[in-house]
């Protein structure tokens, strides 16, 4: 009896999480332009979407931002994880590193965004050529992504022992060889899941982008936000549904990856 109650609440909670998205999906294929009365199935809004230059531009910006920031964050984060796990640092240095590392994880993103805006504006006052736009967005995204990549790769490093690296050393492998032939291949799954995490974080981000974007670097979340404030259209529903589907695919892919890793 109690078990049924728990299951009932759990399923209702899941429905609560998915109902809004389901509604968006339904209205994205509804023929009605205004109002919410069902007027039959159509894919017109999706084809209109592909012809909308602003949306395509925003999609390109989003993807570019996510790819570039993820690449930078993955390299920096992986290096940091190796530094923290494989080299001896004093206790106080370790504490300092982990504080700096956890700071962007728990700080509300609006604070991070606020400090970046103020920082950037001072840079702009000093060098007149610097304007907010794609570079400042990339900097903002990398700054919160690095910590997540580092934490994921560190987690992976804690799983396997250093025996293989020691064995490689015994067989006269150089530093570069140990890194390239032993450590990096062992870390690869961790690096990939860290990168995927960073990529999704970048696609998801609204606040940092909102504060650091320039006039020509609108991303999809920014575009959706601006359109929603003007009034929702079926095109926006179609766009949101597509973004949601991409998220689902990314999550499923990441899940498969992490399950293979743990087997």
């Amino acid at each position, binding site marked *: 009896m*109690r*078990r049924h109650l728990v*299951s009932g*609440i759990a399923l209702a*909670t*899941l429905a*609560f*999480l998915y*109902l809004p*998205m389901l*509604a*968006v999906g339904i209205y994205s294929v509804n023929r009605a332009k205004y109002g919410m009365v069902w007027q039959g199935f159509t894919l017109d809004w999706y084809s209109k979407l592909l012809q909308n230059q602003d949306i395509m531009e925003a999609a390109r910006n989003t993807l570019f931002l996510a790819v570039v920031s993820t690449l930078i964050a993955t*390299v*920096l984060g992986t*290096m*940091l994880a190796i*530094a923290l796990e494989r*080299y*001896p640092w004093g206790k106080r240095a370790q504490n300092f*590193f982990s*504080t*700096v590392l956890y*700071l*962007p994880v*728990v*700080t*509300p*993103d*609006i*604070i991070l965004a*606020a*400090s*970046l805006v*103020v*920082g950037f*504006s001072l840079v702009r006052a000093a060098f007149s050529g610097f304007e907010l736009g794609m570079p400042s967005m990339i*900097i*903002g995204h*990398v*700054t919160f992504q690095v*910590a997540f990549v580092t934490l994921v790769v560190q987690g992976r490093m804690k799983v396997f022992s250093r025996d293989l*690296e*020691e064995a490689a*050393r015994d067989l006269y492998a150089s530093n570069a060889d140990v890194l390239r032939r032993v450590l990096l291949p062992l870390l690869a799954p961790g690096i990939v899941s860290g990168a995927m995490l960073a990529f999704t974080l970048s696609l*998801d981000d*609204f*606040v940092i982008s909102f504060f650091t974007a320039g006039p020509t670097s609108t991303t*999809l*979340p920014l575009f959706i*936000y601006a359109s*929603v404030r003007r009034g*929702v259209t079926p095109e926006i529903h179609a766009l*949101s549904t597509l*973004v949601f589907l991409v*998220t689902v695919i*990314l*999550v499923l892919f990441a*899940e498969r990856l*992490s*399950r293979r890793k743990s087997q």
Partner: protein
Amino acid sequence: MKNVLVWYGELTSAGSLRRRGMVFLLPALLWLLGFLVLPGLVLIVVSFAERGTYGDIVWNFSPENYKRALGFGLFGWSPDYLLILWRSVLVAGVTSLCSVLLAYPLAFFIATRPERTRYLWLTLVIIPFWTNLVIRTYAWFLLLAPESPFVKLLAALHLVTPGDALYPSAFAVYLGMVSAFLPFVVLPLYSSVERLNWNLVEAAQDLYAHPVRVFMQGILPQTLPGLTVGVILTFIPAMGMFVVPDLLGGAKYLLVGNLIQQQFGASRDWPFAAAIALGLMLLTLVALRIYRTRATEVDLV
């Protein structure tokens, strides 16, 4: 030769080891110092500055902004900003509480599924976790609009006036907040529930403990690490949240996040915005300490 040491099979010296470590450490550390720590320090300095006539920053240092945030304005004391702060804490608290109440059944439900389907259920929680918040928030418009079946049902029950939308309202903000943060509680909580020692729970049940007592003494202590992480991951970002109240709350339901954004945007009072942001940061640092002592036993998916 006293510096020579063997470091995991490698004959090296402390100096060379540290140099090599620095190569790996420095790029990321400099990045974080330059774009995280330094702007943070700048924010502290700016928070003591003054707003110029045209929204620029005038470098006259005084604690004026902090006084203003506490309500001491030009025209005597008024609780406006304190009210916003209190409302943010309240919304964050209620959001955390509701999320926890809903998260327990869900975490137990997933943990008691057969091994094969458990990942599937877990994925169902992870997907909203990663779905863009702007989309998930505006999606509530559709369910809260006057034409939606849900609102029509409420109207038929005379709970709302027919033809009224349920947003913007405090209720809509809570709905949006709970649905935004629920996965943040469920996921860490699940990782605690998964390794729960059921013997203790069964023992309590065998001894005819009241269900409340079974929960308080058998389940709660065991799931406390996950619960703490979940609450912190909810409470802190919820206080700084600005998308949900902005879209679902309307102008009357401002939270600290909206206040900061407003000062950056329309009001262009950056020093004041900096002071409020730092007030929020102070609370975050307190939470970080708690997090660091508790989070060691929990892994986030």
